[in-house]
């Protein structure tokens, strides 16, 4: 029961405050718009009618939460998922680019980290550049990459995935280098007394020791992979995907559509991180960790 009191109530309280503040803000921001619209039709609104109108406009400045939920419901549950207006369809487009990019980024990151740990020249020459590559505002390259790859005939999934790759390889490299170096000298010495080869040291000591670091990096990596895929969809001219929904929403002033796309991408992000966390717990259990150690 203590977890309910110390963990659940505070979160619920904060959520309730946020939603209340949201409704208040929606009222304040949409009020003038609602009054103006009524005045154009020559109506004078009572206070109650003004409230109602503020919460049910087609293109409000800030849609009320229930409007967003309704839009999400309309564009997911009541539509076939292959329809161009279904958010499930768009989410899937973005998700597939995210997952492909994430897989490539993770593979590249692990490969680089293994090289860096085992080869001093690679360590010295590449590590500074790996770090420097992240101080560059990477998203600036996104439209570049998309258009260039389009020009040589590569379009669709791969260009977006490459942006996700670029974004997600960094946390994996840094985390894995740290993790592969985390075994202590005494443990490495033990392997040495066993006359273990470098491959054996890698598979039996270094790699298992790096798993916690790997999963911490993967959680960061999957979140920025999704962001990369969404940003990658912006310059393609709003064809498909959550980023395209954002862009077309902003072209036509469809605020509810923008917010619905934002909410769905947030849900996808939360789910992805949650799934990675679940796999982490599963792997820990398979590696024989005690339950309380993973909690």
């Amino acid at each position, binding site marked *: 029961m203590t977890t309910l009191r*110390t*963990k659940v*109530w*505070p*979160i*619920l*309280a*904060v*959520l309730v405050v946020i939603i209340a503040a949201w409704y208040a803000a929606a009222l304040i921001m949409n009020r003038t718009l609602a009054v103006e619209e009524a005045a154009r039709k020559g109506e004078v609104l009572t206070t109650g009618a003004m409230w109602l109108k503020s919460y049910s406009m087609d293109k409000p*400045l800030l849609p009320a939460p229930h409007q967003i939920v309704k839009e999400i419901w309309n564009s997911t549950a009541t539509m076939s998922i292959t329809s161009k207006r279904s958010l499930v369809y768009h989410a899937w487009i973005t998700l597939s680019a995210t997952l492909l990019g994430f897989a490539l980024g993770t593979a590249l990151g692990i490969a680089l980290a293994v090289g860096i740990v085992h080869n*001093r*020249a690679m360590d*010295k*020459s*590449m*590590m*500074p*550049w790996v770090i*420097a590559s*992240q*101080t*560059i*505002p*990477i*998203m*600036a*390259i996104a*439209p*570049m990459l998309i*258009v*260039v790859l389009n*020009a*040589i005939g590569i379009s669709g999934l791969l260009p977006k995935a490459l942006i996700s790759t670029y974004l997600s390889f960094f946390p994996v490299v840094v985390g894995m280098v740290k993790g592969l170096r985390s075994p202590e000298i005494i443990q490495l010495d033990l392997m040495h007394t066993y006359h273990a080869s470098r491959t054996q040291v890698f598979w039996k000591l270094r790699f298992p020791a790096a798993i916690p670091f790997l999963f911490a990096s993967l*959680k960061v990596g999957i*979140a920025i992979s*999704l*962001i990369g895929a*969404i*940003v990658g969809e*912006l*310059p393609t001219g709003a064809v498909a995907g*959550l*980023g395209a929904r*954002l*862009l077309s*929403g*902003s072209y036509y*002033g469809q*605020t509810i559509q*923008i*917010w619905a*796309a*934002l909410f769905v*991408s*947030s849900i996808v*992000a*939360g789910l992805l*991180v949650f799934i990675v966390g679940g796999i982490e717990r599963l792997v820990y259990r398979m590696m024989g960790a005690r339950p309380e150690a993973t909690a």
Partner: protein
Amino acid sequence: MSAIVVIILALAVWLGSWALNEYLVRLKPAGPAAERQIGFAVPAIFGICLLALWELLARGLAIPEILLPAPSIIIEAALNALPIIGIDVWQTVFKEVLPGYVIGCGAGLLAAFVIDRSPFLKAGLLPLGNLVSALPIVGLAPIMIMWFGFEWQSKAAIIVTMIFFPMLINTITGLAASGHMERDLMRTYAASWPQTLLKLRLPAAWPFIFNALKINSTLAMIGAIVAEFFGSPSVGMGFRISTEMGRMNTAMVWAEILAAAIAGSLFYGIVALIERKVTFWHPSVRGGQR
């Protein structure tokens, strides 16, 4: 020059610089100065090798300039368009990024001090903050532009939303970093809450706060540039990248990316430099451990 010759040349450059680096890292440096020189030379050789390969392949294989201009063409374009790039940097970095960065980091820091006093709020906001930092907040850009207009205010607003929670979470974690013993000591001195905060907990929190400041410096650059894709006055790095891309003027796009990279690295570097001065006692700065 035929393609085969170019590829063989490229391989030779690559293998040559790799061999040079392998030789350099195996040298036994005579002293700390020599060691520092080697530590600087090895990544520099790697970088120069990459640039040489790029130049060689772009020119030798006659890759169309629209796809991938050679580094020399990019630098030439950057030098020719220096005034334009200067205006863009002024707009993006000084008018959009800096105000947003200062407001966002300041707000996150202050909010952390307030929340720190209430365990209830901490328990409620920390999980939400962790969730928010995984969300694609850049997507708020069109909405912020709708609310605050095309000028710098909308970009500052998107930056503030992006960097507020990283700052908040890191500061709260940092404020909890001082040990029980030290806090007990402060209590035996009858130190007030502000005194404990200023003399013990804030200094202990600096490494965490600087971590957030460094993360936020890149986030802020990204936020401003991406927000400019959605709409901006006809100036700014993100604006320039998207319009020059539309005109297929790739060299100019790369020049602008180069400028963004330099500005971003400088920004990060300045924050990292201040960190070294402020947290001189921290093991990662003293070089006590590797």
